[in-house]
């Protein structure tokens, strides 16, 4: 039953580059040999996690989205360590802005990089229009999430009716086929296996069993689609606590390579039920990032100018953090 590649009739292929080719059997072998099933203590600092698992040229992604439950302490540490030529997927607000401004990003599977209520991202414009980012492959938010879901399911592709008929499809790396059951046209989205994923959660135990409150974004999919997974958590809890409510474990330990205890890890973004957005600090980036010089000055002060996340928090100051806690979403 040997099959030639491409024996399926593909109606059309997007012209975008598949900037992260995948091999499911190789991923399986990785998951077999590089992901221990032992319950081992994976706690470490941001410094150690980034230096051990992120490398120049790797394909990396962050969850969720800029100002919302985003692994900002990890994103800043990555800038401090200057990991470069990154290939990056998806959506981003502050976190990708920092990487773009620091000149660390080479290729993008892009869905949205902007500043939400504050409009477009100057950092993205500078990086793409100057050619510093050499490739932008286009996807919709749904499509990029489904690409991770394909990898999470262990299958080579998922079909979708998104992207049809548009340039978004033409500038993607998706393929157009007809469903053999009904003849309907669908786009096939190739599996996306990340080299590294960074996810911030409400709580995790020392082994990496992780729980999230509120919306789950694409955490379940990204965690399962990554070869290396760094979890940062607002709180480290006992495994007994995890075992008490096993249905809340959205990321089981065996997926996780590092657990970083990062209180206020999403700052200046929010963490539902723990703290709200730090609007002045977000605006500080919005303003600073309008020019390359301003962005550099911000990086110098808030990222490169501090040794680690705890120095960053000290720089922000207890009063501001307390104010954010006051603004948190509550359960009634």
């Amino acid at each position, binding site marked *: 039953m040997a099959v030639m590649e491409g024996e399926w009739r593909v109606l059309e292929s997007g012209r975008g580059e598949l900037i992260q080719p995948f091999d499911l059997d190789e991923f399986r072998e990785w998951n077999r040999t590089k992901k221990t099933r032992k319950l081992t203590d994976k706690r470490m600092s941001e410094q150690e996690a980034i230096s051990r698992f992120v490398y120049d040229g790797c394909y990396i992604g962050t969850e*969720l*989205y*800029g*100002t*919302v*439950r985003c692994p900002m302490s990890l994103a800043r540490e990555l800038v401090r360590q200057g990991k470069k030529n990154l290939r990056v997927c998806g*959506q981003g*607000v502050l976190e990708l802005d920092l990487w773009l401004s620091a000149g660390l990003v080479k290729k993008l599977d*892009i*869905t*949205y*990089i*902007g500043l*939400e*209520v504050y409009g*477009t*991202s100057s950092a*993205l*414009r500078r990086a*793409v*229009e100057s*050619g510093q980012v050499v490739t*932008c492959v*286009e*996807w*919709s*938010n*749904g*499509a990029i*999430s*489904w690409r991770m*879901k394909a990898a999470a399911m262990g299958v080579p592709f998922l079909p979708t*009716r*998104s*992207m*049809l*008929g*548009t*340039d*978004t499809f033409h*500038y993607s790396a998706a393929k*157009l086929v007809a469903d053999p059951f009904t003849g309907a*046209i*669908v*786009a096939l989205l190739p599996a996306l296996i990340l080299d590294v994923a960074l996810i911030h959660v409400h709580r995790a135990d020392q082994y990496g069993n992780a729980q999230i409150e*509120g*919306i*789950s*974004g*694409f*955490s*379940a*999919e990204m965690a399962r689609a990554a070869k290396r997974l760094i979890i940062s958590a607002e709180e480290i809890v006992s495994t007994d606590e995890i075992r008490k409510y096993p249905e809340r474990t959205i990321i089981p330990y065996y997926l996780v390579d590092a657990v970083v205890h990062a209180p206020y890890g999403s700052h200046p973004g*929010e963490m*539902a*039920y723990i703290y*709200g*957005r730090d609007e002045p600090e977000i605006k500080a980036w919005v303003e600073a990032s309008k020019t390359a010089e301003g962005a550099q000055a911000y990086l110098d002060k808030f990222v490169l100018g501090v040794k680690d996340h705890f120095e960053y928090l000290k720089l922000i100051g207890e009063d501001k953090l307390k104010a954010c806690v006051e603004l*948190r*979403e509550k359960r009634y």
Partner: protein
Amino acid sequence: MPDPTYTKTELMICVAARLFEDASTCFIGTGIPMLAAMLASKTSAPNLVPVFEFGGLGALLEELPRAVGEARTFHKALAASGICDTMETAQRGFIDYGFLGGAQIDPYGNLNSIVIGDHDHPKARLPGSGGGNDVGSHSWRTVAIMQHDTRRFVQKLDFITTPGFLSGPGAREAAGLPRGTGPIAVVSTLALMDYDPVTCRMRLKATHPGVTIEEVVANTGFELIIPDKIDANLAPSAEELRLLREEIDPEKLYI
């Protein structure tokens, strides 16, 4: 008495808000759609079911969300899941309306939010599709909310990010998009537009107070269908303005 002090943005929000159907499921994007949804839920659509792409469904819009994933998008919500569930809900036909923005719109309601100029050597790199393409593909009806000028209302997009009617009648279905879906309206700073059912081209439906047809035409970079009968949009009511200014956007993030 209408308050004469309203801005174009406030008017646009009010006109958009009046389009919301009560007890319908609506995809709400960041920005103006959020204000319109919130205003609608406090006026004509108290049973509106807001859907935010990263997982919030049926939230009570007591405070204005400032991002599509933040806690206010699932404040006292009926469900808080993830983006795949939400997008699949749309793909399954459960989302009635999508409210969208964009940098450019063409006569068929296609939207561009990716690039100005050539994709690979852009004049301006825009944020990207985000959920826009998904919302425009799967929602039953989409409404675009746009500033109205000739740079935005163009004959030909630099890039089709989000499908309107694509190249015209039947093009969506031919491309494989779900049957019976498509754009129904554009709310701009000057007017309300809909689409001619035969040609699928954009058509003036109602002008805003104080705006002439000529002004709309002059600010539109393509031939807009001008029917014999054109309605006039009502100015914001005092209550609409009060809600907008005092309850919805007291911090003046948008208005």
